[in-house]
């Protein structure tokens, strides 16, 4: 071991001091004897002790300084800093060398650490700026599903303060957390794989709503599993896509749906867009007889109902069809719909509805409680602070209005919302216009079709006429000859002989048969000849009584009973008595032919003020046809000997009287004819 200069100096001083003392004693007292020896030994001992003491003191000082330096270095190591300096006066021992090396190593490490720290700082800065600059919002959940962290974007977007969400569960942040998000988190915890939930609707407790792609990942920090939820706001994109898809849905609906109501519902559903895209409520009023009449409304009745709808339709996955949202909307808002349907607003210059309609421009009401343009009636119906009125303009005139608001999430009505509404309003206006055109076209088509049927029928009748005329001609000629000669036989001078009488009787039979056939021919020709009616005010009851009396013998012969239930005070109808008699005759004969012995025919008359009704029902075999009304077709017959014109004549006469005739089979058997004849105004 090495001694320091001071130690050596001290040793020299102490040794010199002993020698000097001994020399003094010798010179002074000249005594060197045994006691002296003891004194010397004692002195030497003292000297040794002093020297030992000096030695230890020197060593202590020597090490103390270096250990302190090392300790400070270690302390700095612990802190990760290397600023301490230690300068040995002279490197003449190992310890100083080591301390020096330690210092150099420390410095070196310090420079490395500083460089790395700088690098880390740079990285941190970059990292932070990335986090802040990306449009995504994210939150980190701990293993108990409580929020550990959220980025500034999240706070800003959803209008939260840190303390409002820190250590909360996600259910306490969002109004509803749909099943997919929950299941997604559970799945990620289970598998450790990242899950992506596309187009998910989120609504926070403070009613900020977004459609987002949500990415859920698992990160493990210090053996603790954490969930990072990255929320990508795609509301705008989804809204655009959704609008395009809605437009096609709406135009499809217009082409497909017969009822304008469905088309309007589709449009209003588009305005409210089910979940998070559009307005909370939308109502449609159309100009009707100088008033704006409520026609359709879509939207929930309460905030709870709104949440219900949005939860049901909170995901815009690819396979989610518009109709699912519509179905959810359909369930809700019955009260709103009823109130709107009952609402009618007369056009008033000062009312906002009228202004929007006539001015053909959207009007945004920001504070309906204090806006003079909002009439008390409108205020009562809307019951909301802010709403927008958009006119429906077709062919450059206002035909109605759409009114929309955000009653339930109180979201302010933005420029983009107004744009959305005006798109749908113009679509709605076109739909309504095209629908009413379509309606007109349909009406025209119906008329055309009726006209065509009439033409077909008249063509049929014309053909019947030509055939009948030809047949009549061919048959009448021989009849005329036969009958003429029979008549001549009868006109021969009478002999009182038996044989002459027989000849006479036979000739008469021939003549009668000829006359009968000629009459039949006349009937056929009556059918095809344009009728010339003598229309007078007749009581149909009289016609029926007359006809029944005429056929009395026939009823008796066939053993069929006839019951007349003729309404009293039956209004008179303008009709040709003989033609009507023909109708009754043909109908009763027809029923009689269909009714077996013992059956009954019932004729009833009555009136409802506009028409008189004649019912003729029988207990016969009925009509074995899918549509019993075919029996009115010319030449339709089931009889062996019939021509098949009797009922066709009936129909023609009734039609010529602006009436209507139908036949149906009765449940209890037999057929029933129903005639309606208009009572002249």
């Amino acid at each position, binding site marked *: 071991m090495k001694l320091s200069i001071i130690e050596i100096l001290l040793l020299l001083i102490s040794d010199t001091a002993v020698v000097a003392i001994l020399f003094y004693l010798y010179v002074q007292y000249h005594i060197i004897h045994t006691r002296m020896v003891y004194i010397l030994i004692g002195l030497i001992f003292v000297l040794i002790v002093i020297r030992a003491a000096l030695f230890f003191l020197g060593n202590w000082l020597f090490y103390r300084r270096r250990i302190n330096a090392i300790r400070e270095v270690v302390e700095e190591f612990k802190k990760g800093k290397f600023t301490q300096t230690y300068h040995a006066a002279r490197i003449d021992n190992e310890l100083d060398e080591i301390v020096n090396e330690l210092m150099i190593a420390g410095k070196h490490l310090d420079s490395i650490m500083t460089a790395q720290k700088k690098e880390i700082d740079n990285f941190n800065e970059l990292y932070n700026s990335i986090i802040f600059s990306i449009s995504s919002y994210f939150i980190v959940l701990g293993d108990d599903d409580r929020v550990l962290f959220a980025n500034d974007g999240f706070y800003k977007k959803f209008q939260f303060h840190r303390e409002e969400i820190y250590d909360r569960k996600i259910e306490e942040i969002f109004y509803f957390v749909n099943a997919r998000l929950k299941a997604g988190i559970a799945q990620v915890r289970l598998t450790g794989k990242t899950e992506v939930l596309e187009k998910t609707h989120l609504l926070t407790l403070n009613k900020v709503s977004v459609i987002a792609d949500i990415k859920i990942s698992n990160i493990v920090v210090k053996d603790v599993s954490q969930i990072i939820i990255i929320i990508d706001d795609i509301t705008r994109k989804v809204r655009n896509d959704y609008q395009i898809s809605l437009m096609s849905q709406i135009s499809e609906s217009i082409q497909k749906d017969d009822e304008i109501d469905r088309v309007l519902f589709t449009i209003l559903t588009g305005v409210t867009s089910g979940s998070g895209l559009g307005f909370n409520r939308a109502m449609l009023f159309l100009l009707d007889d100088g008033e704006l009449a409520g026609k359709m409304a879509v939207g929930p009745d309460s905030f709870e109902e709104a949440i219900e709808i949005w939860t049901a339709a909170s995901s815009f996955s690819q396979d989610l069809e518009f109709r699912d949202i519509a179905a959810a909307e359909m369930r809700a808002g019955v009260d709103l719909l009823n109130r709107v349907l009952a609402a009618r607003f007369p056009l008033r210059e000062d009312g906002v509805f009228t202004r929007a309609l006539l001015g053909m421009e959207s009007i945004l009401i920001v504070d309906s409680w204090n806006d003079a343009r909002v009439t008390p009636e409108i205020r009562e119906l809307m019951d909301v602070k802010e709403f927008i009125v958009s006119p429906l303009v077709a062919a450059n005139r206002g035909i109605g209005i759409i009114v929309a608001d955000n009653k339930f999430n109180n979201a302010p009505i933005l420029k983009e919302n107004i744009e959305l509404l005006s798109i749908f309003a113009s679509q709605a206006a076109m739909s309504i216009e095209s629908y009413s055109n379509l309606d007109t076209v349909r009406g025209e088509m119906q008329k055309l079709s009726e006209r065509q049927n009439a033409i077909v029928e008249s063509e049929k009748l014309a053909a019947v006429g030509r055939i009948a005329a030809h047949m009549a001609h061919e048959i009448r000629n021989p009849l*005329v*000859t036969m009958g003429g*000669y029979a*008549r*001549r036989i009868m006109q021969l001078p009478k002999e009182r002989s038996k044989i002459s009488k027989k000849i006479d009787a036979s000739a008469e039979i021939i003549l009668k048969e000829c006359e009968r056939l000629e009459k039949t021919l006349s009937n056929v*020709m009556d059918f095809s000849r344009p009728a010339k009616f003598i229309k007078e005010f007749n009581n149909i009851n009289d016609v029926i009584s007359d006809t029944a009396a005429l056929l009395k013998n026939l009823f008796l012969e066939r053993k069929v009973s006839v019951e007349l239930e003729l309404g009293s005070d039956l209004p008179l109808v303008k009709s040709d008595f003989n033609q009507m008699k023909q109708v009754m005759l043909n109908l009763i004969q027809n029923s009689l032919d269909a009714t077996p012995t013992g059956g009954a025919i019932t004729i009833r008359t009555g009136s409802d003020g506009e028409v008189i009704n004649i019912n003729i029902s029988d207990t016969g075999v009925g009509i074995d046809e899918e549509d019993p009304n075919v029996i009115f077709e010319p030449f339709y017959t089931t009889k062996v000997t019939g021509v098949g014109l009797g009922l066709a004549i009936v129909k023609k006469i009734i039609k010529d009287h602006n009436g209507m005739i139908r036949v149906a089979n009765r449940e209890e058997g037999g057929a029933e004819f129903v005639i309606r004849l208009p009572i002249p105004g």
Partner: protein
Amino acid sequence: MARLLIVEDEKHQRELYAMEFEDEGYEVDQASNGKEAVDLVKANKYDLVIMDIRMPEMDGIEALGKILSRDKKIPIIIYTAYSNYKSNFMTWTADAYVTKSSNLDEIKGKVREIIAARS
């Protein structure tokens, strides 16, 4: 005594009319189609022609035209088994249109009426 021309293609019918009108006291000539009728009208003077429509060789309509173009004053009664062309035939300036019937009362009455009116 008034002289009639009966134009009818059916022999038995024509003979029946001839007998009936002779019984009524008229002098009756017969033609079996329009052509014969036109020839007879050229050769003789008739007080009245009873004309069927549908006949072979020349029908009643054509014959009517030819006879009228020769003598506008001769009365002609269309007497036919067609019942539904009355208004058409009347416009062709026949004096009357009667539908054939085994009962000859109507045609007899018409003939009487026209003859009486002319004399």
